[in-house]
């Protein structure tokens, strides 16, 4: 299952493709617009919230595959 998601770039309104697993491991994602040099990463203060949500999501995904 893909863990990619897409958000709008706050700087140019272009696309930023985010891999949630990599984001949680400290990854930095750049805007796909060539001229925009913006990149986003997860703030340390939000790491716990995002990580817990991802754990919960993995649990229901595993349960769904087992059922």
């Amino acid at each position, binding site marked *: *299952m*893909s*863990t*990619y*998601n*897409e*958000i*709008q*770039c*706050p*700087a140019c*309104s272009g696309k930023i493709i*985010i891999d*949630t697993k990599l*984001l949680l491991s400290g990854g*930095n994602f750049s805007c796909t617009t060539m001229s925009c*040099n*913006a*990149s*986003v*990463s*997860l*703030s340390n*203060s*939000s790491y716990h*919230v*995002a990580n*817990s*949500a*991802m754990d*919960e*999501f993995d649990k*229901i*995904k595993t*349960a*769904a*595959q087992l*059922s």
Partner: protein
Amino acid sequence: MTQLLSMAQQFSGLPIKALIAAPLLAGAEANSKMALSQTEFLLKTCFNTSGSGKDIKYDPRMINMVLTRSVIKPDGSAGTPVETRFDLPLLTILPLNSLAVDEITVNFEMEVKSSFSNDQESSSETESAAEGSFSAKVGYGCFSAEVSGSVSASSKSASSEKSHYEKSNSAKYSITAHAGQLPLPEGVTTIIQAFSQCIAPIQLKAGDKVEGTVSSKPAA
């Protein structure tokens, strides 16, 4: 001779409805459970709730992101990157997909092979042989007599019988269920789009008033 079984008779007692409907019902039930668990997950993990009963209010749970932009000075040299913090709904970074059983294949194959075969082989063999010999000699004068005889008889009998009976039945029932990803419901897609479009900061001009909840955070 035993008669072959009627094919129609063989299939008449089969619960075809149950065989086909049961896997489909199981698939529908699994889909329902999956949808319910994903909805519960969304509401529990991605939203903060306030109020109760009919007045329950769901506010999106936000995470803080850091936006880094490079700066190039007028002389072409690299300046210190500028960091901007913005809040993003947690919902937008989760790889949500509607997981569901999208294909169920019921393969029912029943082979009724009823065959009767009776091979009989019988053989009988009789052999008899007889042999006889006799000689006689009679003399007169000095009295001489000679009698000789021989008898021989032989008999042989063999019998064999072979019988072969064959009958077979076979049935095969296989169910293939495949769980795949379905497109997200339109409502969830709309919510995610609305949230992600609110990431961009609102540019205020000189003299604009800041009203209500307008801030650097996206309006949920």
